[in-house]
């Protein structure tokens, strides 16, 4: 990794240069919510001014740019009782600006599933490798618990990473393509002054985490508390809407469906992101449902994230961004659920 300094106006030039050849996704201001708080979302931008880098948190994670909500896996062309299959992977380059450390960590975890494990997934890999990722440091949000789950630092999985030092950015350069790209605009070597400022910002960040919750004992706890009343308490509230999984940066469960054109000349095989909180997630033909009630479905989501995934990949799937808690209309917030599990254990 290389460290450099870039002036903000040079950074602007950099973004605008990039826009000339590449689709750029960045946090964009949408509107204020009912309480007057701004809402941001990762959306395509057409010029630098639409990008908001000092945003708090985007409602939705950026995962859709890697695992689209709906993704055509293959197309079948049918003719005279025969067919051919066509498979295409996305190879148009794209850049995403303004990912926070938790979001980048989420991608690193998805990499473990889709890029490193057996059956690597070419649809994901092609999107991942064709996406230029620019992350940025920020002051902790109100409800996130990334620090409690070890997702507030990043070491890899990005191209550039910025830390705002007022009039300039402290840049971590993590790939040769990033170095080539950023070298198109003036960048400076870091001075002691820069390092001092950088460390001060980092210190400020690390002192500002607000939410505290213990997560390291969760794999064990979840096993013991499998029959816990906590699940009933929170499960009864669940609306079975799947919102939590849709906004989550790591939830990756999906379904596959096929659609045939009205004249039966083409068929499409489509993967669509799904959620384990939905009624028929584990339902099979004939109507048997392995998780028929809200409580078991809600429990399964925690069980998969904090127990199953840990066992398979050594760390939880959750990165503590708390988007699920924030967008859940029923107010099911992972911090409270996990705290309740700890309480239950003490009883």
């Amino acid at each position, binding site marked *: 990794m290389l460290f450099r300094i870039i002036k903000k106006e040079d950074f602007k030039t950099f973004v605008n240069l990039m826009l000339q*050849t*590449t689709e750029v996704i960045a946090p964009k201001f949408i509107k204020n919510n009912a309480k007057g708080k701004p809402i941001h979302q990762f959306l395509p931008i057409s010029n630098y001014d639409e990008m908001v880098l000092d945003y708090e948190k985007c409602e939705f994670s950026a995962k859709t740019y890697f695992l689209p909500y709906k993704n055509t*896996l293959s197309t*079948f062309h*049918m003719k005279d*009782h*025969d*067919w051919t*299959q066509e*498979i295409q*992977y996305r*190879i*148009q*380059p794209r*850049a995403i600006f303004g990912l926070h450390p938790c979001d980048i960590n989420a991608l690193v975890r998805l990499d473990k599933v*889709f890029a490193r494990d*057996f*059956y*690597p*997934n*070419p*649809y994901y*890999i*092609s999107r991942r*490798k*064709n996406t230029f990722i620019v992350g940025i440091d920020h002051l902790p949000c109100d409800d996130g618990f990334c620090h409690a789950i070890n997702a507030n630092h990043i070491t890899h999985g990005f191209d550039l990473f910025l830390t705002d030092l007022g009039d300039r950015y402290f840049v971590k350069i993590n790939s040769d*393509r990033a170095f*080539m*790209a950023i070298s*198109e605009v003036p960048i400076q070597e870091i001075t002691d002054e820069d390092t001092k400022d950088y460390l001060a910002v980092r210190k400020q960040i690390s002192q500002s985490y607000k939410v505290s919750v213990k997560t390291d004992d969760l794999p064990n706890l979840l096993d013991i508390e*499998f029959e816990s009343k906590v699940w009933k308490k929170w499960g009864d509230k669940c609306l079975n809407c799947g919102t939590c999984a849709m906004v989550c940066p790591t939830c*990756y*469960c*999906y*379904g*596959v*469906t*096929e*659609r*045939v054109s009205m004249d039966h000349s*083409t*068929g*499409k*095989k489509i*993967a669509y992101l*799904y959620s*384990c909180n939905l009624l028929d*997630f*584990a*339902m*099979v*033909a*004939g109507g048997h449902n*392995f*998780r028929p009630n809200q409580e*078991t479905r809600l429990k399964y989501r925690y*069980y*998969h994230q904090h127990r*199953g*995934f840990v066992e398979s990949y050594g760390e939880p799937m959750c990165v503590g961004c708390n988007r699920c808690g924030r967008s859940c209309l029923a107010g099911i917030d992972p911090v409270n659920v996990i705290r309740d599990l700890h309480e239950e254990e003490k009883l």
Partner: protein
Amino acid sequence: MRLFTPYDVTKESDMLMPLEFTRANRLMHVDKTYKAEITNIIRLTEMEKLFHIRIINEEERARFSFLPGQFVMLELPGYGEVPISISGSPSNRGYIELCIRKAGIVTSILHKARRGAKVGIRGPFGNSFPMEKMKGNNILLIAGGLGMAPLRAPLFYVTENRSEYQDVHILYGTRTPDQLLFTYQYDEWKRIDDINLQIIVEKPDITWSGKVGMITKLLDELPIKPLETYAIVCGPPVMFKFVCNRLRQFGIPMHRMFVSLERRMHCGMGKCCRCNIGSTFICVDGPVFDYWSVLNLKEAI
């Protein structure tokens, strides 16, 4: 600004491994299906048909091999993909046998298919019954209803290597006599393969002269040597729960009983999570589990 050269997965060398669906392999087109032709359709009952399916491309056909217990994803382009256990013999390299019940969308359309229809298959996926380990022992094959379909692959394996196994028993139960599958093969199994075949139905009709009752009833009449026996149990969850518990009472160790689990599956590759139970994926870690593992899987049954 030339940001970076677009990356094309299909050009990456280590992704260019041949199309082989075994766990260890990396593969390029996880979504590519073998084109296969339905060469024969045998109507077994009102609801079940046996399909003979042959991979069209010779090279692909030669490469396709499987172990008893594995399944394939069978695809009707434009309508969907379903997991189906392979119901034929692993040594049959000409065609694959699939016994399919009309259950929902894909399977219903499939039941309308005629010979010559071209479908897609991916696989084989999943693990298998430890047929090697079972050699030299008595074998208990216990099937309830459609459970006979996945049981046929290990049965073929046993009959084709008959001398390497001791006593072989098939215990088979269905609800009514007209639900019995593969009736035309019973004689062969009994006479040629020296298998003790016992059949029982829950609800007899006027033509039925055989045994009546639950499948566990058949067990009670068997001479079982617990430590020299392996059991394979296939059927609906309630059924194998009862059967395995009874076998345990006979003293058969739980790691000598195998069941094949069924879950919703959409990818077969441990990605979609539909069949996931915590850290276990039925599609890659299963579908075959010994009974001890099943008991350890939360909410497995």
